[in-house]
C-alpha cells in the first residue's frame, strides 16, 4: 500500500473492536502471561512444550524424535513435555482452555512420553503408583479420566479401575498395587456414599492408609471430610500435587489442612485454610 499505516496510526481513534473489548482477545496460548513466564526458553524444550500446548500429536512426535537425538529422555519429559502440560493446567484453570483442549494436549504428551520411555529402555522410574476409580453406580467418568491423564503425564503409574466400580474391587486393587494415593470420583449424591464404605472397608482391612482424594459434581468437601482418609479434591490437575505431597510423606490430615499450599494456588473451597 502507498500509505504506511501500522507505524503511525493510533487505531483507537478510528475503530474499536468492542467484541474483543468485552470478550477479551483471542491470544495464542503461548502468549498468555502465566504461560509465558514458565515456558522453557531454549530448544528443543520449547518446541516440545509447544507441541503439547497446541495438542498436536504429530508435532509432538516430530519434536520428541528430534529432541531425543541430542537430549536425555528424562529431560525430554521433564524439561519439555511436562512443562507443556503445566501450561495446559494453568490455561484450564483460568478458563482459557476447555476439556477438548486438555484432552488433546494429554494425547500429545503421551505420544512424546511413550517415545521417551521407549528410548530409556528400562522402565522409567515412576514417582509412585496411584489407583483411580469412579464410584459404584456412577457412569460419570470424565473427571476421573482427567485425573488419570494428569497423573500419568506427571510420571505416576496409574491403575485405572474405570467407572461404576464395586467397592470390593477398589479395596482389592489397593491391596495389590500399594499406591501412594487412591482417587475416587463420584458425581451423584446417590453414589458418593460409596466413598464412606470404601474408607470403612480399608480401615477394616487394616491396610496401611493410602491417601484418598475425591471430587466431582454433587460431592462437597464437608461430605468427604466426614470419613477418615478423605481429602476433597477440587480440580483434576490438583491430583498430581497431592500425589507429590503423598510421596513426600504428607498424610491425609496434612492435606486437609494444607490443601491450598500443596496445590500452590488459591482454592475457593478451602478459603478457610489460607
Amino acid at each position: 500500500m502507498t500509505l504506511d499505516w501500522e507505524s503511525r496510526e493510533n487505531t483507537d481513534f478510528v475503530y474499536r473492536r468492542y467484541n474483543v473489548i468485552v470478550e477479551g482477545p483471542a491470544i495464542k496460548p503461548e502468549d498468555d502471561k502465566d504461560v509465558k513466564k514458565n515456558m522453557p526458553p531454549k530448544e528443543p524444550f520449547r518446541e516440545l512444550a509447544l507441541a503439547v500446548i497446541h495438542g498436536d500429536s504429530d508435532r509432538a512426535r516430530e519434536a520428541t524424535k528430534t529432541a531425543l537425538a541430542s537430549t536425555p529422555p528424562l529431560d525430554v519429559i521433564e524439561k519439555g513435555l511436562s512443562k507443556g502440560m503445566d501450561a495446559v493446567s494453568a490455561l484450564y484453570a483460568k478458563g482459557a482452555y476447555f476439556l477438548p483442549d486438555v484432552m488433546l494436549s494429554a494425547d500429545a504428551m503421551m505420544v512424546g512420553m511413550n517415545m521417551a520411555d521407549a528410548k530409556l529402555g528400562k522402565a522409567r522410574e515412576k514417582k509412585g503408583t496411584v489407583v483411580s476409580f469412579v464410584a459404584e453406580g456412577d457412569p460419570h467418568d470424565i473427571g476421573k479420566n482427567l485425573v488419570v491423564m494428569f497423573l500419568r503425564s506427571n510420571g505416576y503409574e496409574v491403575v485405572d479401575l474405570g467407572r461404576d466400580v464395586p467397592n470390593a474391587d477398589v479395596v482389592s486393587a489397593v491391596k495389590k498395587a500399594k499406591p501412594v494415593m487412591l482417587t475416587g470420583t463420584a458425581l451423584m449424591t446417590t453414589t458418593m456414599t460409596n466413598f464412606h464404605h470404601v474408607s470403612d472397608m480399608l480401615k477394616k482391612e487394616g491396610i496401611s492408609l493410602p491417601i484418598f482424594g475425591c471430587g466431582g459434581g454433587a460431592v462437597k468437601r464437608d461430605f468427604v471430610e466426614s470419613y477418615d482418609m478423605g481429602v476433597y479434591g477440587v480440580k483434576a490437575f490438583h491430583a498430581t500435587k497431592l500425589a507429590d505431597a503423598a510421596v513426600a510423606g504428607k498424610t491425609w490430615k496434612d492435606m486437609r489442612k494444607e490443601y491450598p499450599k500443596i496445590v500452590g494456588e488459591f482454592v475457593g473451597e478451602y478459603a478457610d485454610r489460607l
Partner: protein
Amino acid sequence: MGIFRYTKLAYREPDEMLFGHAKFPVSAHWGLQFGAGYVVPEVKVAPEAGSERSKEVMVKECESIAEQAAGRAVDIGLPAFLLEQEHVYQQTHFPDWGGACTRAQADVLERFHNEYGIKCGLRQTVGDTRLEERGGLRGTDYDNEIAESIEQCAKNGASDIAAETMGGKSVLDYGSMRGDIRAILFGIGVLGSIDMEYFWKRAVRICSHYNCNPAGDTNCSGANSVMYIAGGLLGKDFSHTGAALARAISAARSLVAVECGATGPLKDCGYENTIVKAICGVPIAQEGKNAVCAHADVMGNLTCQVADVWSNESVFHREEMGGPTPGVWLQATGYEAALMNTAIQTGNAKILRDLYTLTDKYRDPQGTLLAYDNAFRVAGAIVEYGKDPYLRARAAALECSKVITEAYDAKKLMLTRFELDSLNKYTSVLEGLPMESERFIDECMKEYPKRIPTFDPKSYGL
C-alpha cells in the same frame, strides 16, 4: 455590562485550521473531548409524530433514540459519538419534560460508556419558543421556560446545551423574502447580535452551576433560512451570492455566544462555523453530505474541512431497511468521521481537508465563501471591526463580496447573470451604508417597525 469582543484571530494562517483540531478543545463527561485531535460523529433524530402526546411517551421515545444510536455505535466499532436531541416544543415549554428526557438518554449513554468504554456525549438543544409578537423576547413565560429547561437539562446529565435562537427573525424574514440586504444585515447582524447577548449571558450562567458546557448557537433562523430559500443550483427564490452574504453576516452574530462564554462545539447547522472557528478557536460541529436527510446544501464535502464534530440533521424517527434511523445516520456520520481520523493518524489530514474543500469550493458561491482560506479572510474582516457588531457584520459581507468577485474574475467560479447582478446590487447597497452603528440603527428604525408588524423593537432594547 459589556462583554468580551474578539479583535484578533485564533490562528495565524488558514492552513493551521484542520478537522478534529481546535485551538481550545473541550472536554465532556463520559470520556469525550472535542477538537482534541479526533473527529466525533454526531447523530440527531426528531421524535416521532405523536410522541408529544404525553411526557411518558416522549421520554420513552428519547430513550429509544439513544438506545438505538448507542447500539449501532458499538456494533460498527465507533470509538466515540455525540447524541443530540433538538427539543420539540414540549421539551422546552415544559422544562420537566426536557429534564426527564435528558435523564433517560443520559442513563443509556452512561450504561454504554460503562459497559464498552465508548466515549459519548449528550447535547440538548433547547427550542427558542419565544415569539416577538407575543410579548416580546424577554421576560415572558416563554422566555423563562427556556431558562428553566436549560437548567433541567444541565442538571440531568446533558454534556452540553445549544440553541438556535431567533433574534432578529422578523426583520430577517422580511428582508429575505424581498431581497433586501439591509434588512438582512439589520436582522441578523444587529438585532440577532443583541438578542444573542441577552440569551447567552444567561445560558452560560446557568450551565456554570453544573457539569455541562454551554455550547453555542447557530444562525439557523437567519442564514439557514436564506440558504434554504435559495435552494439548489436552479433555485432562484434568492440568489446564492446573496445567501453567501447572509452567511458572512451571520458569522459576526454567532460569534456572540462565544463572546458570552460558550465553549463549543458550536452546533452543526451553523455553516458559518468555519469563520467563527477562525476567530475564536473553539471546536465546531458541522453537517454536510450526511445531512442529506434534511438539507440539499451545495457543499456536502466542504463542511468537513475543519469540523470537530460531524453530524447529520434531524431525521424522522422510523425504520429504514438498514434499521432504525438513529443507528443508520450515526453509521453514516461515524464512517465519515472514521475516514477523517484515519487521515489524522496517518498524517494525511491536510490533504484530505483540501480534497473536501476543493470538491465544493467552486460548485457554488456559498462554498467559495466558506472554503477555509476564504472564511479566514472574512474572519479577519470581522475582528478588524470586532468591537462593533454592526460594523463587523457589514465588513464580513463586504469581504465576502470581495472573495466571490475575485474568484469570479479569476474564472474559477462561474456565475449566472442573476447571481452576479444581485451580488453587485447588494454590494453597492452595503457600501452605501453608514459607518456608524447608531446612524444605521436609526435609519432602520425609521423603516422597519412600521413595515413589519411582528417586529418588536423593545425586545432588543430599542
